[in-house]
């Protein structure tokens, strides 16, 4: 099973369903803040949501360097691994 793809689908779904991002705007290279309108409060809600799903604690440090959709996917992969 391709976990990379799964993580991407999960992040995509999260952005569309929870944060009202239009699905067609989502690309791996899209900037969360500039292209998708995700602000720092959304980032917190996203961390909380991902923790509920993965059951693992994500640190704010892990999230501090996140800029793009692909960065979030990498973190999800990392947490799952």
């Amino acid at each position, binding site marked *: 099973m391709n976990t990379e793809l799964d993580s991407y689908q999960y992040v995509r779904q999260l952005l569309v369903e929870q*944060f009202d991002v239009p699905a067609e705007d989502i690309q791996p290279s899209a900037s969360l803040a500039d292209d998708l309108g995700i602000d720092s409060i959304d980032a917190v809600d996203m961390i909380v949501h991902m923790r509920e799903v993965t059951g693992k604690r994500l640190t704010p440090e892990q999230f501090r360097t996140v800029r793009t959709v692909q960065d979030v996917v990498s973190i999800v992969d990392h947490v799952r691994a």
Partner: protein
Amino acid sequence: MHSRFTAPLDGFWGRQGRRLWTVLSFALFGLGAGVFGLVVFPLLLLLVWNRQRRQRLARRLISVLFGFFIRFMGLFVLSWELDGLPLPEAERGSGHDRPDEPGGGKVVVANHPTLIDAVFLLWCFPGADCVVKASHWRNPLMMFSVRAAGYIPNNDDEVVLEEGVRRVRSGRTLLLFPQGTRTRPGEEPSFRRGGAVIAARAGAPLLPVRIRCEPPALRKGEPWLAVPSRRGHFTITALPAENPADWLPAPADSRHSERAGTRALTEHLKGLLLNGC
């Protein structure tokens, strides 16, 4: 409430005098930070074990010290008026000062034009909770006071939100600068919506407080000795409180509603607080 002395002290000698008094004021602040930060607050941490009591004492002390500092500066380098705000001295020992009174909690959001805005607000709202730069927890002069007062460090947004909601629900007043840092002259700051989110989640009102300083002084990116042409006059105005629930589109209990509502409310507050800046 107004400061008592308001002569502009302009002209060459007036300006030099104000420069000297500014140096003295900040020297006094440093001395106070040394004595209280390294002796009194550590003693509070050592001797008062009841956290509630310790926080109340520490916050009351901070409010008294900051009030003293502002009056000291107010002798020659600044003047002020508080508009719609209760007298700090009357508030002490009642209201904001008595935490854990459910129902009385609120979030105070202010713009941040000068170096001493937090000093003014912590004087005006004795006993308030405050979100403070996390580096203060490692600064020897500040670490004991911020710990004794139980302020909230700003390094983890999740903790700020959770703690903020918890404290406002328990009846406390939470002070926030949505800009995070002082306005840079000529730049439009961005406002974060954390204050609106905390108020919405705690079911508490949001009180906008507008800070003006004319002529501008103690701004970001300016040496603090660059005193303006005349005495800086602060006007601190409490604007009508907003109820975040009024801003949330139906159905109000969704993330989508909270996002849209708090964003709109934050833009509204930004307009109110920065208007004319």
